[in-house]
């Protein structure tokens, strides 16, 4: 086998390897009919990535004689060949990958400026072909976006975040951090981003879905896509089926296949958008809506802990969303435990109480209703 990559493609190759290093510890190299495949898988086999470089990616591509060459090696060894990534395109003119099977070495030679030649002879191991089973065409949901959109979205989540939840409806996409049930769930910070379908280059949602997968592994692809400027496509189905992220151009195709949680059973984590959400209006961003009165009326109707108290008709459309939160919580109280309910309401209480100076026109008497709540210690005004 003898392949030569030149110019900017050397850096692309280095970035592909760097991306793969975010998935697993070993690099699997295989010569396939369509070109050269570089693959990696994580230790729990829940994430797989493959970069397929077509022969046209290379200035010269000579496949191994028997067409069945494959090997694996520690990915750190290969990364060491491409150190100083930033200056790679300035210093390296050509990169040659040769297989010297009689010595069990993969030779990577970098032809650099000023005649400097860097030769790395890496030892490898034989291995089985690594291939995840997936079928992009059969996925019900397909989204495609510019990499910048995805990078900017993911930026809002902390680097330490493990899992992220992606929910889609007919016209929107939500991205939230996924928090496991347990002691930490009450203290966890919840982040939620909502994107409209218009922000995507392609938006095809077969059925409303919510899937949860690992964010850390996704970042590996995003770094590559961002630097290459190629749009990122996402293919996914119901929870349990893997989500596939892919970037491609005429000479290269990358697929990242990530497993998803098989059941998203945390009702407090997402509002069921279709049934409760009034379709057309934009939900207000905060609880301090213009009309405090109607707001407070909605609060009145949600006295805890009685789910039997049916809320009176919502006076303003703007209140519907909050109303629906409450309704939903009341409905679910029969199913869920106390904590989710309490959490939602404590959020409301914190925001509903205005300082007298902020809203001089509001009727104070309505605060009497709230005063009955023993949690609230800030109550100062009484009429």
């Amino acid at each position, binding site marked *: 086998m003898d392949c030569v990559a030149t110019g900017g493609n050397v850096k692309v190759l280095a970035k592909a390897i760097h991306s793969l290093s975010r998935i697993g510890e070993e690099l699997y190299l295989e010569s396939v009919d369509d070109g050269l495949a570089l693959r990696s898988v994580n230790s729990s086999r829940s994430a797989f990535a493959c970069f397929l470089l077509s022969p046209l990616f290379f200035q010269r591509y000579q496949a191994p004689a028997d067409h069945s060459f494959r090997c694996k*090696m520690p990915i750190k060894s290969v990364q060491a060949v491409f150190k*100083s990534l930033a200056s790679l395109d300035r210093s390296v003119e050509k990169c040659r990958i040769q297989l010297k099977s009689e010595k069990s070495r993969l030779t990577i030679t970098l032809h650099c400026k*000023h*005649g*400097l030649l860097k*030769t790395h002879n*890496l030892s490898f191991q034989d291995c089985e072909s690594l291939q995840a089973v997936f079928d992009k065409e059969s996925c019900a949901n397909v989204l495609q976006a510019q990499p910048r959109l995805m990078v900017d979205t993911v930026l809002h989540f902390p680097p330490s975040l493990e899992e992220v939840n992606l929910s889609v409806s007919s016209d929107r996409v939500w991205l939230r951090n996924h928090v496991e049930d347990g002691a930490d769930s009450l203290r966890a910070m919840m982040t939620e981003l909502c994107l409209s379908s218009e922000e995507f280059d392609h938006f095809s949602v077969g059925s409303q879905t919510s899937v949860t997968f690992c964010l850390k592994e996704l970042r590996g692809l995003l770094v590559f896509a961002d630097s290459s400027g190629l749009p990122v496509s996402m293919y996914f189905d119901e929870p349990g089926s893997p989500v596939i992220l892919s970037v491609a151009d005429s000479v290269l195709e990358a697929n990242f296949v990530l497993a998803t949680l098989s059941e998203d059973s945390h009702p407090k984590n997402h509002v069921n958008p279709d049934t409760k959400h009034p379709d057309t209006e934009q939900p207000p961003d905060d609880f301090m809506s213009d009309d405090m009165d109607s707001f407070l009326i909605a609060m009145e109707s949600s006295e805890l802990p009685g789910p039997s108290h049916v809320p009176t008709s919502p006076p303003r459309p703007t209140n519907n969303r909050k109303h629906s939160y409450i309704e939903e919580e009341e409905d679910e109280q029969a199913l869920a435990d106390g904590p989710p309910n309490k959490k939602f309401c404590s959020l409301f209480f914190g925001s509903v109480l205005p300082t007298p100076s902020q809203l001089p026109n509001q009727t104070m008497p309505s605060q009497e209703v709230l005063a009955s709540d023993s949690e609230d210690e800030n109550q100062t005004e009484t009429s």
Partner: protein
Amino acid sequence: MPLSTQSQADIDQYILIASLDNARNLSNILKAISLRDHAIFNATQNGLKVTVEDSKCLQANAFIQADIFQEYIIKEDAVGFQVNLTVLLDCLTIFGGSTVPGVCTALRMCYNGYGYPLTLFLEEGGVVTVCKINTQEPEEPIDFDFCSTNVTNKVILQSDSLKEAFSELDMTSEVLQITMSPSHPYFRLSTFGNSGNAHYDYPKDSDMMELFQCTKIQTNRYKMSLLKPSTKALALSCKVSVRTDSRGFLSLQYLVRNDDGQICFVEYYCCPDEEVEEE
């Protein structure tokens, strides 16, 4: 200037006085050889030579000529002493690293002679610090017996290209192998690490190669742990000469320009690790 308020009597007692307007011109070059704690100072009419040795296999020398100093007075043919280099560097940089242009630490280094401490007067922005560092009996530096007449192969390279190679060296390799030859591969650095081996080849007609004088093919291995510290000297330098003699001893000479553009030299000598069959 506070440094000049010393009385004539004080000045008379010193057998060595060396002054610099910018102490960095001394501290930078000493950092390039700071492999170990102790340094041997040997001052002559020509200037200052500072030596640091490691496990009897490696020696680093820094040369600061007399004309680099703003004032250089020596009252004997040769003045020698040994000090803790780490302490000396801490004192020379006692005012911290000043990045304000034009502000630098002035230094007057004084030595009374055998048994006396090395006295440093340092001044920056009107503040004077006096440091006295204990001296020890100087050890005799090893004579590697490396003379120009015995040199088999010599190359002079621009430091930039070698800096890149040194920063990328596979540190899992115990040795650094240097091959010098009148034919291919001309000048090659090799490592043998956990993942495989790596070679960095510099052709004789590279524009980074300023001089190429190789008479016969030689391959020698040196302990990576001994040579890796030379990267500090390499980082400061603009040119480096690499020479090996018939025994395989390595001499690296670095041309260093200080803050004021004056030239100083740093040199490393290293013994080969073992006999190697020529490839």
